[in-house]
């Protein structure tokens, strides 16, 4: 719906533009499966241990909808600016595959839970609005293990149905994307939204978030689409970017050499950095969709939709804008701080604990992020925690300790935790800001560095820095730098 003219990049000068639409599958963070009470915590379970007669597709069993899965799909649809039609239903998608126990997948065909949404994001400073055709709800399949992991060579395959029936959203995007970079950014932003509203864990590695793409090339400015190729098996953001770049280049080469493209499905092979055709001898698909007779339809009235909308937490974009205006942060700082809901919550936790906004931002983006990376432990799960860091930064803010001391303490307390105030008083780490005590040290430093004093008096402003450094060294970093500056200037003039 929101096909917008986006300048084609990467294909500049070729006369072609790429047309990309993404289909994202996202497992919902529910406790139980879509149509039965089995747990969704299947990932590390022994094979076929997380199953019951319903998700095994045993004869005589029937599905019963998970209310929370419906609600989380509606929540997602609202976050993606979709309409929620008053009537929706489930359909059966019929095909045979060993990971599909019933021989059909319960999905949605002509009346999905939501339609006509969009996702906005920025690429190179431009705002891109990509249409979301629909968000619908279905059940995940089981998983297959092939001898040697190569489906082509395997003489047999092993079926695990632990994943079968996990609630799965399909988020179908409009073909509004024009570059691999846009596609990557779309998936990144979509993932951020899904994690923000708590419907998906965002793990492409584990497959709880999966992405397929439809890619075609056409003459720049043309309105009709070229031959569409479906790309599967992109298991990371990087893979999305690389696979699409590769595929766009491949299609361009075919077209420029006068060839024609075939409509097909191609798989991305990460290790080889290329896509390969997945054409097989299998029959053409004819899914024979029809309304699922075992499930009554859904009528979601506006009261229901508004109630769900009430569950919608502030979305990343809105939070970023609020951070800029409310806390006076730069766009850059705000973007980093809202990257995940946890990060943004940590930041607001620090501020509400009395840490000045700018100080909190500097520390969270700088040293805290460094430690979180180094230890693979985010602050809110570290020993220090949000409260500990706030206590530490309050000491900085009141001038009780200086930055150097604070950094040392942060490094030390990050994992084990502890009360910064207690440590400071116990070890006497408090900042030296007694004029008498500092005056003695300053006098000693001046006496020992007459050359620097002469340089300063001769107009070399930076000589003052080395004198300050000497004072800091003598006080093991505890001196109040501002006061040292003032005392030096007072004694040596200037």
């Amino acid at each position, binding site marked *: 719906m929101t096909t917008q003219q986006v300048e084609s990049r990467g294909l500049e000068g070729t006369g072609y533009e790429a047309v990309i639409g993404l289909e994202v599958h996202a497992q919902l963070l529910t406790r139980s499966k879509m149509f039965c009470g089995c747990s969704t915590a299947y990932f590390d379970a*022994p094979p076929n241990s997380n199953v019951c007669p319903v998700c095994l597709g045993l004869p005589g069993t029937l599905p019963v909808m998970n209310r929370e899965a419906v609600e989380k799909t509606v929540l997602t649809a609202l976050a993606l600016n979709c309409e929620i039609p008053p009537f929706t239903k489930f359909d059966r998608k019929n095909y045979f595959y060993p990971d599909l126990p019933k021989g059909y997948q319960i999905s949605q065909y002509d009346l999905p839970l939501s339609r006509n949404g969009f996702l906005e994001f920025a690429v190179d400073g431009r705002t891109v609005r990509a249409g979301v055709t629909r968000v619908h709800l279905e059940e995940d399949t089981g998983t297959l293990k092939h001898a040697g992991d190569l489906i082509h060579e395997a003489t047999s395959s092993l079926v695990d149905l632990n994943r079968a029936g996990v609630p799965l959203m399909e988020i179908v995007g409009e073909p509004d994307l024009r570059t691999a970079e846009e596609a990557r950014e779309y998936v990144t932003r979509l993932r951020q939204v899904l994690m923000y509203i708590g419907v998906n864990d965002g793990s492409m590695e584990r497959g709880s978030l999966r992405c397929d793409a439809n890619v075609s090339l056409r003459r720049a400015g043309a309105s009709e689409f070229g031959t569409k190729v479906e790309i599967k098996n992109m298991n990371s953001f990087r893979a999305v970017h690389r696979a699409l770049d590769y595929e766009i280049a491949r299609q361009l080469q075919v077209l420029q050499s006068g060839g024609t493209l075939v409509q097909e499905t191609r798989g991305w092979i990460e290790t080889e950095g290329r896509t390969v055709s997945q054409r097989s001898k299998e029959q053409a698909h004819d899914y024979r969709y029809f309304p699922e007779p075992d499930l009554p339809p859904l009528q979601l009235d506006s009261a229901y939709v508004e109630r769900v909308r009430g569950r919608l937490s502030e979305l990343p974009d809105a939070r970023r804008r609020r951070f800029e205006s409310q806390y006076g942060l730069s766009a850059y700082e705000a973007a980093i701080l809202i990257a995940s809901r946890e990060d943004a919550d940590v930041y607001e936790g620090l501020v509400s604990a009395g840490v000045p906004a700018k100080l909190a931002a500097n520390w969270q983006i700088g040293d805290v992020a460094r430690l979180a990376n180094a230890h693979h432990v985010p602050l809110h799960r570290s020993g220090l925690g949000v409260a500990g860091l706030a206590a530490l930064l309050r000491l900085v803010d009141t001038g009780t300790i200086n930055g150097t001391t604070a950094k040392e303490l942060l490094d030390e307390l990050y994992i084990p935790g502890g009360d910064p105030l207690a440590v400071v008083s116990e070890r006497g780490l408090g900042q030296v800001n007694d004029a008498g005590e500092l005056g003695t040290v300053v006098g000693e430093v001046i006496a020992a560095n007459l050359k620097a004093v002469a340089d300063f008096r001769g107009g070399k402003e930076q000589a003052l820095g080395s004198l300050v450094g000497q004072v800091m060294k003598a006080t093991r970093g505890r001196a109040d730098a501002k006061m040292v500056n003032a005392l030096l200037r007072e004694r040596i003039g200037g």
Partner: protein
Amino acid sequence: MARMTLSRDDVAHVAMLARLGLSDDELERYRHQLDAILDAIGRLNEVDTSSVEETAQVGGLVNVWREDEPRESIGSERALANAPDRDDGYFRVGAIQE
């Protein structure tokens, strides 16, 4: 509207969609029988449905759901007990690609 009679390819296509391995005799027999049945079913077109909604269900229920509460699974031993072929906790199937 006159209906085209089923060809052997039509019947073979349907059998493949339904994953029914049929002998040549069966294909031929079903071609005749399905043709006869589809002819008889043509009586449907005598009913005027121009302003009629479809009925998929007669129960009249909407919004039937359960709360998101996990239940105990039956465990892999019971899950696999009826399997024609199993291997180390998995159901085993033959080569997926020909």
